């Protein structure tokens, strides 16, 4: 089994899909000659040439729009948005154009488009280059949304996204690009959308995590004292795996989401609301969201580390939840 870094796993996934299907093309800023600002397209230009692997001008609306037009006429474009924040200048093409193409063609056209975007905090890029921003996408009918939690899931989700007939956004936590993971690439590693993964088993609480917080949640559980947890990597937010969460909560009776987002408007609200509403009778205590505070992502290693929920913090909050059956305050409710 090769030990691949997450960026290598992504490059491999794209390469394999381009081999498999001559309609797959890829473009973005500096992804061809320079092989990607995060080296997620290493070797692709050399292998597939400049017709299928292209650098673009700094024109997110232009090249996302081009991807939409290409997708509905027979290509499967994979486009890179260097930092997810840059979608802010071109969101329209993803959520108002791509996501409506199937509908607006009376079901005749598909827009099999993959938008890859790096996201998240942890590398000191400051407030305009460190967010996750699922909230801009979550809830858009016609769109799918996946979040990688490491090399293996990045590989499997990227391949699934490229094959999917609908537009898909895959978020890639930037802090994980350099981390290596052991896994066997190939058909069996393709990950279906809408299927979460149970990464740890336990009795007292169901922890739902996504992207960068999957590792954080697993570490928290390994430090847990006197309780055990199911840890679910949700993997896709649209669609999301209600079944795996419901089944787990039916056993554990408690739900905690661990997200990288600010508290307000994060994806955790969706999971927590669903469970509080539909699994009420299974609950033996309040649902809880563990998140970052409602502030801009600060610059600087220490502050950024405080911003993101840490494993010890997650463990502490869950311990308190379990022992008191009350939701403890967020750390910043004491701090301020």
């Amino acid at each position, binding site marked *: 089994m090769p030990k691949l870094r997450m960026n290598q796993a992504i490059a491999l996934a794209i390469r394999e899909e381009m081999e498999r299907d001559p309609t797959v093309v890829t473009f973005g800023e500096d992804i061809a000659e320079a092989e990607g600002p995060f080296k997620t397209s290493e070797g692709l230009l050399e292998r597939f040439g400049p017709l299928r692997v292209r650098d673009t001008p700094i024109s997110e609306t232009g090249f996302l729009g081009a991807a939409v037009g*290409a*997708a509905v006429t027979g290509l499967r474009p994979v486009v890179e948005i260097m930092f997810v924040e840059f979608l802010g200048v071109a969101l329209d093409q993803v959520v108002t154009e791509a996501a409506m193409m199937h509908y607006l063609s009376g079901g005749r*056209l598909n827009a099999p488009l993959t938008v890859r975007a790096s996201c998240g905090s942890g590398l000191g890029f400051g407030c305009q280059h460190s967010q996750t921003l699922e909230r801009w996408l979550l809830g858009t009918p016609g769109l799918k949304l996946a979040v990688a939690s490491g090399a293996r899931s990045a590989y499997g989700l990227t391949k699934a996204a490229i094959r999917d007939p609908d537009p898909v956004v895959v978020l890639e936590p930037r802090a994980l690009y350099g981390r290596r993971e052991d896994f066997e690439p190939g058909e069996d590693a393709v990950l279906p959308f809408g299927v979460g993964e149970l990464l740890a088993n336990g009795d007292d609480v169901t922890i739902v995590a996504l992207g960068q917080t999957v590792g954080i949640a697993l570490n928290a559980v390994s430090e847990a004292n006197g309780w055990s947890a199911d840890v679910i990597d949700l993997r896709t937010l649209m669609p999301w795996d209600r079944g795996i969460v419901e089944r787990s909560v039916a056993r554990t009776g408690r739900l905690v989401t661990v997200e990288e987002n600010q508290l307000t408007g994060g994806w955790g609200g969706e999971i927590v609301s669903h469970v509080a509403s539909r699994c009420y009778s299974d609950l033996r205590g309040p649902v809880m969201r563990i998140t970052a505070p409602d502030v801009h992502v600060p610059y600087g290693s220490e502050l950024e580390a405080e911003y993101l929920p840490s494993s010890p913090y997650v463990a502490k909050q869950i311990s308190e939840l379990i022992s008191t059956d009350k939701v403890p305050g967020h750390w910043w409710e004491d701090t301020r």
Partner: protein
Amino acid sequence: MSSPVLPEETEVQLDAVSRRLALTNDVAVRFARMVEIRLLEDRVIDLFGEGLIPGTTHTCQGQEAVAVGIAGATRPDDVVVCTYRGHGMALALGVTPDALLGEILGRQIGCMGGIGGSMHLSDSSVGLLPTMAIVGAGIPIAAGSALTAQVLGSDRISVSVFGDGSTNIGGFHEGLNLAAIWRLPVIFVCENNLYGEYSRIDRTTPIEDLALRAAGYAIPSETVDGQDVDAVLSVIERAAARAREGEGPTFIEAKTYRYAGHSRSDKAAYRPAGELDSWLERDPVRLYGEKLIANGTLDEEGIERIWAEQRDALEATLERVLASPRASTADMFTRVQASGS
């Protein structure tokens, strides 16, 4: 002429293709199509006035020659991306009046099933991509459909149709630049009808000659009389030939005018006195009729017959459409995702 964007062909779709080919091959049909557009647009305004249709609509009376010129100079397997002001373009490309009125009236036979409405037309059998209601959005989308042809090595081209007001939005700039740097087989047609909504172009755009903007992307450009269908046709033919030869994009500014207001509720009181009248003197439908008489293709009576036939056909269509089933609740759910919902 077969195309990867085409799924199973329905009867209506085949009809659209024949309508398109008829227009390409027969100048009388071209004239008839212009008449059809004019009559249908007038009727649509009435239908809205009668409260039969919710929402809004953007008609194109006065701009018929641009639509028919584009349709006449391109192939059904070429791709066209236009806007919410798309009835004329759709009919010209071949979309049937049934499918068009069906859409506007929310019927299942509508070209997108009756759940899109006037601003959202689509027929992949004649290359009409969904018309989008966001200004400028279609411009890079058209570039992208040209990218498909370039990558797959086909000689299909794309045509992007948009208004003068749309040349001030970022998508215009980015779409043209991308098409230029990638030498994509796409024709940008700006229908300069002097107004973006209620604003005259000189109040939003500091230049008169929009071709100047094309120069900023090293894209060759031509300005054409948008009221002369043959002039439009030949300028598009030249641009299409360039595109098919791999010589990249062309920018065309068609000088035209919309007779009606911007949308259903607009009485266009902002227009200077006399402006509409002076444009009516160069009405594209009448001009073309006169030309066909002059060159002996039709006589007065032939012209009159076409008007009459089209009038009758429209009323028959409308009757059929109004009798046909409305979009149903289930239709809301079934086309949200290609992968099933």
